[in-house]
């Protein structure tokens, strides 16, 4: 009996700990994801500003390139 009770307690503790870990992980991931989106948007805004600065500063053209396609891979790594 004592042995069974101990086993149940251990299993319960492990399950509770796993659930807590999962909840914590999901929470953190949610924060990271929304933070990541904000960071990505900020990065695009920063690149756009830098690009406009470059166009204002240098003698550049703006001519559509050949040989490209829309990328289908999410989370594109860049060059």
């Amino acid at each position, binding site marked *: 009996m004592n042995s069974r009770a101990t086993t149940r307690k251990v299993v319960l503790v492990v399950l509770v700990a796993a659930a807590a870990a999962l909840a914590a992980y999901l929470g953190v991931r*949610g924060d990271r994801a929304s933070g990541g989106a904000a960071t990505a948007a900020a990065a695009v805004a920063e690149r756009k500003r830098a690009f406009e600065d470059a166009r204002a500063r240098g003698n*550049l*053209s703006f001519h559509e390139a050949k040989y490209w396609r*829309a990328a289908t891979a999410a989370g594109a790594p860049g*060059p």
Partner: protein
Amino acid sequence: MAGGDGRRRAGAMTTAAVECELCPRRCVLDNYQRGDCRVRVNVEGRLYTLVFGKACSAHVDPIEKKPLFHFLPASRVYSIATAGCNLHCKFCQNWEISQTEPEDADNRDLEPERVVANATRAGCRSIAYTYSEPNIFYEYVLATSALARARGIKNVTVTAAYVNEAPLRELCRVTDASNADLKAYDDAFYRKICGGRLAPVLKALVLYKEAGVWLEVTNLIVPTLNDTDAGLTALCRWHRANLGAETPLHFSRFFPMYKMLNLPPTPEETLTRAWHIARAEGLKYAYVGNVADHPGNHTYCPGCGLTLVERQGYALLAYRLVGDECPRCHARIAGVWEPPRT
């Protein structure tokens, strides 16, 4: 929640990101990101070049400077470049323009029509897309070449040949001659020293030949990096087997430049050794460049050994071909020959 947010991110990235298909890098670019070449940018899901009609160099050169030794000898070639490159060779001899942002270059407005007009006015038989890397100012080269060809002016590219098959095939339709680098027959060299890969270059060189473009190949010999007998022999064997014994091969002297200021200029003996290896491997037209007064400056008849074209540096001293033949043994000499107009 998390999953939904992740999907939105993926969706946003997918609609704005583009993949450049010009060179083997295949840069995948998010909105307002530039390619590795620095001159292509994704703006709201479309790819643009920043250097069309924006030359940072324009000069009249002798064709021997490219070097092209079997193509309209002693003719003048109108030579243009833009900023940028898709390789990053640590020994780059033109790094001031190849490794800079286009907005930092001294660009002048030189639309294709004006390039061709300038070439005509300067008495040039051809236009060279050179100094940096023509494949990264691809659209500019293509438009100018089409116009030049329509006006009877030939087109020449001086290139590292780091380009994908489809764009190269299209460009070859309006290209008459090319001097392409084979920097080493060694993938590790391309990866470590140039930031590229060997295989796409080999494929491009073969494609030039298949497309009927007059091809000459240059190997810049950098002391300690690509100067072994074994490496040079392997390069010559690949050259002969895949490009043919009649495709000229130029061994060029390195001078300390860019990130390789620690190395000495290539010793003349090394270039002479490479020249002998190429001849021993059966290449009919091996040359030594950036060394004046070297026997490897001249063109010899592979049939009888007669000196057919004598050169000193970029200057042509004597020209003895009759048509495209040796005047003594009548062996045919590969190339696009016309007597110098002097």
